[in-house]
């Protein structure tokens, strides 16, 4: 039906897109796994990080890869503060309230961006974006390849963080058993905030990698939220390998369904997978068994 050349090229591209999804999902699966909250503000955070990268480039000439040293740490701090001093106190620990709080935050952030920076589309053009790597039929822009490498590296760092450090152990403890962790002396509030901070930093990394091949507007985050959640659920809540594999898998699924059904109708590919996973394997590909 389709020639192999096209299919391979499309698959390869799907992997590069999936790498960015994976990064978004890593952060989200951490937040979701530990705090059990659906963070509606995730897309808005991505949008803010994209703007940060844009302005750094425009005003200070900092290219997005150097910005990796600035933006993610900044967003870690912001994420920590947001959870500790905004979401937690307003959420009263109730899921419904937390949902509303993150929704309110996303409304504020989206319109703050509109108010400050107007709806004008912002683009940056960096020399790396003009470099192409030819792989058969496809010529992949360098930033995309960097994106794949980066997500694997970040995934690895994540894994190291979670398994080899005390912080990681504390996070896993809180995710498993909140009350028990508290009894053992872990400051649950602090861990929540740390997790949120790390999750935000992660999406900021995704932003740095995304900006060379995409654009920024105040509405840019909207498209990412559902994809990010699909990745998290597909990969398995709380599993980082799951987030990585899930993201890559989803990128390819998206590419294939776009090829088969057309880009427009093909969108349902992701959602159908989402529904199927939720129904038949809610723990996802790599999720822990339900206790």
């Amino acid at each position, binding site marked *: 039906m389709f020639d192999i050349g096209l299919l391979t090229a*499309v698959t390869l591209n799907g992997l590069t897109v999936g790498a960015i999804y994976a990064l978004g999902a890593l952060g989200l699966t951490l937040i979701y796994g530990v705090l059990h909250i659906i963070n509606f503000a995730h897309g808005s955070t991505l949008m803010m990080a994209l703007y940060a990268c844009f302005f750094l480039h425009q005003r200070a000439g900092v290219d997005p890869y150097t910005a990796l040293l600035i933006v993610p740490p900044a967003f870690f701090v912001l994420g920590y503060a947001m959870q500790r001093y905004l979401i937690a106190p307003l959420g009263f620990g109730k899921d419904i309230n937390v949902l509303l709080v993150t929704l309110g935050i996303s409304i504020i952030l989206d319109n703050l961006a509109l108010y400050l920076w107007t*709806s004008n589309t912002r683009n940056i053009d960096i020399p790396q974006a003009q470099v*192409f790597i030819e792989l058969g*039929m496809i010529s*992949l822009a360098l930033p995309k390849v960097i994106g794949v490498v980066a997500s694997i590296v970040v995934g690895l760092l994540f894994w190291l963080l979670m398994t080899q450090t005390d912080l990681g152990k504390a996070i896993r403890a809180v995710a498993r058993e909140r009350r028990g962790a508290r009894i053992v002396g872990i400051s649950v509030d602090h861990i929540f905030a740390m997790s949120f901070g790390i999750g935000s930093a992660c999406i900021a990394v995704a932003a740095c990698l995304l900006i060379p091949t995409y654009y920024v507007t105040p509405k840019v985050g909207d498209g990412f939220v559902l994809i990010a959640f699909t990745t998290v659920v597909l990969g398995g809540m709380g599993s980082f390998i799951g987030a990585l594999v899930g993201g890559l898998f989803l990128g390819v699924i998206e590419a294939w369904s776009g*090829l088969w059904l057309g880009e427009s109708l093909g969108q349902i590919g992701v959602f159908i997978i989402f529904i199927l996973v939720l129904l038949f394997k809610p723990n996802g590909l790599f999720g822990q068994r339900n206790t």
Partner: protein
Amino acid sequence: MSEDKRNPTLVNQPRRRLLQVVGATGAASALGMPSVSFGQASTRTVKIGMIQPMTGMFAYNGAQGMVGAKMAADEINAAGGIRSMGGAKIELVIGDSQSKPEAAVSEVDKLSEQGISCFVGGYASGLALTATQASARNKVPFLVDGAVSDQITGRGLYGVFRLCPGFKQITDVALQNLSNINDANGKQVKTVALVFEDGAFGSGMAKTLAGELPKRGFEVVESIGFPTPTRDFTNIGLKLKSSKPDLIIPSCYLNEYVLLARSIHQNKVPKKAIYSVIGGGASNMKFVREFNAAAQGIMDCNHWIDPRKQRSQRLVSALDAAKLDLTYEVLLNYSNVLLAIDAIEKAGSGDREKINQALLSSTFDGHVMPYGPTKFVNGQNEGARPINTQIQGMKVEVVYPPEYATAKMIFPVPLG
């Protein structure tokens, strides 16, 4: 903190409070807050309501529309205002439709009660359709900018006018121009790929084109719809590369247009030309500036200025000086506000029915569009049409029809 220990009348509080709140709001609405201005126009100002999406999906387009509208109003006010009304000034009142039909209707109703003489705006078909229904009920003229659905005019509604062309007019002209251009250049283009956004305007465009192109001897080899927003156009670029069309016809909004053009350029899709119909990006200076390499040679059949008119050139210089982008929302709103002002001038008052009558018999040529004098039939300006532009170097040149051309067309476009 139980009810027993507190004030015994606490028991009645909930009911009272609720009634108070309902009563207060009822009173406010009965009084007609925000205050209604008496009479439809004072001798000092005439108000034009701008129904634009200032927030939401189309915020950029709404903002650009207001740029054009303000320039027109400022220009006329600076030149002495409405002469037939003793120098009355034009005041633009913004009604943010928030890119949602409900808000558009609500703003039309609100502004209708605040003494607006007529409306300009709409932008997107969904917004224009519902807003004009409301304005017709309120018996206020509405000049539609940009929205191309053929159903906007011809519903027999009161006061609906469209200066620019609708779907049918646009596609007819675009196709005819394409045939002419192709014939004049050795009929090199035989196969066509359509790439369109899957909303109202893109899918409508694609459908019409897909039906009409074969009648003119073109073969449609590929028809790719995509959602707005779309993150990544590599797959589309690959599909195009694989089907090797002679001509690519995109119909989409600015952001996606830029990404698409880049993808086509990056993937070195072999094609003879890109000929967009209402291309979003192709007639946009921002695109020309920021992605010049990918933009070279791209043609567009879109709303554009009549380059021969002095007023057009003044508009372009003014935008340049203010460092604002020239996009079709600017042109159309500028022209529509001037049209409205002309009607007010002829009517000699801010009276809605008089303005409506003035528009019905209007032969206005002070706009910057390549339409000639206006003539509205069932609300649609008969002479409206798009023209062909092409990006050459750092400029957007008009290349067809010849009487408007500012540069020679390059067709087919060499792959570079």
